[in-house]
């Protein structure tokens, strides 16, 4: 057996791969479910917080800043563990799936709020004044004039951050979520062979590479001249 054969036998073992392919595919489905939930709820919550913050109610803004800074500072894994092992003490017992979803959604919410907020504040004051001078209300101005411009400015940082946090679904393996990494590592210990890990890595690439490419396309598509 040559060195290359031994390498292939270890990392790309066809028999092992065939056997565990269904597990990895199942893991992909779980990862996709988690990712979609995290992205939808995290971005939505972040946008809502940024819109509330733009109303300029002082005590409310302090609360938002506190929440946002908290979840930007804590490592996502710490939040997952706290929710999974901590909440049962408070009477709620979220599953690993739900714990991971909530944790990463909170982290995405925090970063997204800051990005949306930066976008809103970077729209020139003159835009507000022109709209208000024609009789548009504060909320109409925010939604019709300011937000569409703010969203374009936020697309690049937002997609980057969203991808980075969504990849954190792999952390769910710590609380027994059967997502890609979880499936791959249990397959690896059952088969005494690291091939499933290679399949897991491939699965992540298959999932996220198109997203990264799409993000790049969106960024260039929406970079419009002022």
């Amino acid at each position, binding site marked *: 057996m040559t060195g290359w054969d031994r390498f292939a036998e270890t990392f790309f073992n066809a028999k092992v791969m065939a056997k565990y392919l269904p597990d990895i595919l199942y893991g992909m489905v779980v990862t996709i479910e988690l990712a979609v939930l995290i992205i939808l709820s995290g971005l939505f919550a972040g946008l809502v917080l940024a819109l509330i913050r733009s109303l300029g109610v002082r005590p409310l803004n302090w609360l938002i800043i506190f929440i946002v800074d908290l979840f930007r500072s804590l490592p996502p894994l710490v939040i997952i563990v706290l929710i999974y092992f901590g909440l049962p003490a408070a009477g709620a017992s979220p599953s690993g799936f739900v714990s991971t979803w909530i944790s990463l959604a909170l982290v995405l919410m925090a970063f997204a709020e800051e990005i949306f907020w930066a976008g809103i504040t970077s729209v020139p004051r003159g835009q507000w004044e022109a709209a208000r*001078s*024609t009789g548009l209300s504060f909320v109409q101005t925010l939604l019709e004039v300011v937000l569409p411009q703010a969203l374009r400015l936020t697309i690049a940082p937002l997609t980057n951050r969203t991808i980075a946090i969504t990849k954190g679904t792999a952390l769910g393996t710590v609380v027994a979520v059967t997502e890609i990494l979880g499936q791959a590592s249990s397959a690896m210990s059952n088969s005494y062979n690291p091939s499933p890990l290679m399949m897991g890595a491939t699965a992540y690439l298959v999932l996220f590479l198109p997203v990264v490419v799409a993000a790049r396309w969106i960024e260039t598509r929406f970079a419009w001249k002022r």
Partner: protein
Amino acid sequence: MIVSAKDIHKHFGALHVLKGVDLDVAERELVFVIGPSGSGKSTLLRCLNRLERPTSGSVRVDGIDMLAPSTDINHARQRIGMVFQSFNLYPHMTALGNVTLALRKVAGKSRAEADVLGQAALERVGLADRASHRPAELSGGQQQRVAIARAIALEPRVMLFDEPTSALDPELVGSVLAVMRSLRESGMTMIVVSHEMGFARAAADRVVFMDDGLIVEQGPPAAIFEHPTHERTRAFIGQIQRH
């Protein structure tokens, strides 16, 4: 009087920008406000539609008390068009979109009605053929004319112009002034902060000279430009005309 401002004071922190200004403007009148930068003329204009809230004083426009808490400010602002130095067009909308937004959202017109009115407003400023262009695709002069169309589409009773030509290249000023002149001829009441002295001479009913937060002197353009009575007015007119 369609516009009546009484004893307007405006403080920005420790800065006392308006120190008791009275300004009455009659229907169909064109009032020109001139003065050195920092004299408070833009702030005065912005107090009239409450973009700035005066610290004290009263403002009535078309019979509406602009400072009363009970006044629906968004409704009142429909009657007061405003044009800004930096145009402030919405960059994500077409020219027609800019003009029709308030027609739809404030005046409650359907999209079809708003499009007809918006197209007519663009026609009035000579830009009917630019309706589907974005601001970035228009020259500065064209952008400012779209901004004027955006204001007049709501059929305001008064138009406020805050240095409408100051950000324009010299060769583009004429087209904006031409639109302002035709507005004037249609009988629009206008209050204009600007240093376009030629336009003031030709079109203004009254010139108001402000300095240091106060109206120093006012009168017909000929009187203010040829025979200013105050030393500060004389010095300012002299400086402007040397350019």
